């Protein structure tokens, strides 16, 4: 048997593997491994996070044996290994490091739990453990599993996504289209796109698909958690059995809390999206050297995503990143052209005939956030944008606004270079849809939009809540 004959899923870290080593004095040691990385057909890599007995042993005596499990059939495979070398940089190390950093960050262990080295072993032999499992019926395949790897699906899916992304005219349309297409073409049922805020310190969810609570506007600090790590490192991350990985991180955390590293611990960041996600994949959206955002998909099933999905999503992520960049550029060009030949704006008096209950909007200056009644609506830049719009509307009856005036308004504080106004407006629009549908921002083309208000508004402004 060769390494390549083993199913891919044996290497996804769903079911822990077993590793035995032996000290020079002949004392064996046995432990489990959260993941075995397949490097090529002759080598595997194991992560070294702490200088432990295993590492000490293989430096003295390079032989090792591991047992790997197929997480669907529970078939077991025995590999004889010989320790070769350790790596502290390079693609293998980086791939393993990002994964470990993400788990560490998600469990509040950033900097404490980290990859020391990627330990590369030569594979001497591979065999199936005959008689480990009986021949009882296998669990039936999950009918809701994602589309299996098939060249036709792959090409069809990419074509479909490509067509839809190219035809989108606005960022809003593009984001919705991409997430729908990922579900339609490939069965990624739960997905979201996050984009950076003005200071590139956080990402916010700008579009989501397949969640009961859309979660648009949820924030993730760059460098924190799974998504934040993908953004900082600009490297994709795929995890199967997310719960298992996180439990492993928590076990280490519980140990660390009893030692001196305690002060470095920070509160755990909850996973955005599905509370019980088992499989997870996140891709950075990058154009040139710029981080455009992160595309994340997840599933309640273990092993929902495999290497094929990873390769596929990487292509999609590249397309989406470029498409986002293009659509934003087109929106801006249109807005700039419109500025040269401005339309005449006729202020429209607020209509009180579209009666509904009066809405009270509250703005808290210190927190820069807006509430509708007692419900939190939005904060920071999109909050300030909304406040500017409704204030002008209630004071002057004005309903038509341009992106340009928002860009230059010092009160709003968008960065002068490469601002993210388009994604902020998408967020604001979606939050209004969800929390205050009586107020709408309707794009009218050429970088302009109309504020449509279907109820009487009362504004209140305070320092703090």
């Amino acid at each position, binding site marked *: 048997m060769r390494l390549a004959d083993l199913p891919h899923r044996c290497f996804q870290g769903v*079911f*822990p593997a*077993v*590793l*035995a*080593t*032996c000290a*020079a004095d*002949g*004392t*064996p*040691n*046995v*432990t*489990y491994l959260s993941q075995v990385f397949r490097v090529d057909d002759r080598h595997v890599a194991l992560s070294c996070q*702490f200088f*432990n*007995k295993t590492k000490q042993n293989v430096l003295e*005596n390079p*032989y*090792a*044996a*591991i*047992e790997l499990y197929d*997480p*669907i*059939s*529970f078939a*077991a495979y*025995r590999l*004889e290994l010989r320790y070769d070398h350790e790596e502290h940089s390079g693609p293998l190390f980086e791939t393993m490091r990002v994964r470990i950093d993400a788990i560490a960050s998600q469990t509040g262990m950033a900097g404490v*739990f980290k990859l020391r080295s990627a330990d590369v072993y030569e594979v001497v032999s591979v065999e199936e*453990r*005959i*008689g*480990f*499992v*009986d021949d*009882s*019926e*296998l*669990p039936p395949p999950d009918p809701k599993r994602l589309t299996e790897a098939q060249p036709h699906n792959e090409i069809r899916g990419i074509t479909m996504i490509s067509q839809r992304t190219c035809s989108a005219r606005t960022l809003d349309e593009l984001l919705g289209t991409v997430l729908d297409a990922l579900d339609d073409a490939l069965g990624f049922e739960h997905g979201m796109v996050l984009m950076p805020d003005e200071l590139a310190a956080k990402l916010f969810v700008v579009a989501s698909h397949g969640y009961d609570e859309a979660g648009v506007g949820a924030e993730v600090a760059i460098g924190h958690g799974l998504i934040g790590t993908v953004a900082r490192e600009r490297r994709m991350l795929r995890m199967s*059995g997310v*719960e*298992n990985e996180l*439990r*492993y991180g*928590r*076990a*280490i*955390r*519980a*140990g*660390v809390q*009893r*030692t001196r*590293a305690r002060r470095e611990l920070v509160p755990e960041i909850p996973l955005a999206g599905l509370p019980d996600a*088992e499989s997870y994949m996140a891709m950075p959206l990058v154009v040139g050297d710029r981080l455009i955002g992160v595309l994340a998909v997840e599933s309640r099933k*273990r092993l929902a995503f495999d290497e094929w999905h990873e390769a596929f999503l990487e292509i999609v992520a590249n397309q989406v990143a470029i498409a986002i960049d293009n659509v934003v550029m087109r929106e801006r060009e249109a807005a700039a052209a419109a500025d040269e030949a401005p339309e005449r704006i006729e202020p429209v008096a607020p209509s009180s005939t579209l009666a509904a209950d009066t809405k009270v909007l509250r703005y808290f200056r210190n927190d820069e956030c807006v509430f509708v009644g007692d419900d939190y609506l939005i904060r920071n830049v999109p909050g300030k944008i909304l406040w500017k719009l409704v204030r002008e509307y209630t004071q002057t009856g004005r309903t038509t606004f341009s992106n340009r005036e928002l860009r230059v308004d010092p009160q709003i504080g968008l960065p002068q270079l490469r601002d993210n106004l388009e994604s902020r407006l998408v967020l604001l629009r979606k939050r209004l849809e969800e929390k205050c549908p009586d107020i709408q921002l309707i794009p009218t083309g050429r970088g302009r939009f109309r504020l449509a208000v279907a109820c009487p508004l009362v504004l209140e402004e305070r320092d703090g809540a």
Partner: protein
Amino acid sequence: MSAVALPEELVDFLESGASMLVGTRDGALRPECLRAAGCIVDPDRSSLRVLMNAATAARTVANLEAGSPIAVTFSRPVDHRTVQVKGTCRRVRPADSNEHEAAERYLALFTEALYVVGMSRAMVRRMRVAPTVVAEIQVLELFHQTPGPGAGRRLEERDAAR
């Protein structure tokens, strides 16, 4: 090295259906690993019986019969609490009917322990535990092995009793 008595609290843990891994080595110090099929702690608490599936244990049995020391790691899937026992093997023999029953009981407990962390029962139940062989172990050392910086530390009495 003299025999070590297992702390009383640990007995339940070792017999609780935790994941059990066995390490041995041959005369050229090439290691072998094996997933075991249960454990019975003897009343004196300084020896225990490790139950193994005979079909997969051939190398392990040969190593033990040639005098290899043995390492047995017990790990609870839900919180990764892990303990490693090291010792020597007095003998290896086929299981008696009580021990066969203990192996079947172990499989049931192990299946539930993994079910709690999301593994399918149908999958785990495929693991074979019979025919069972028994390795009689004299315990010489005990190590704390829960992942983290403390892993590998000798298990002191007060830790074990916690």
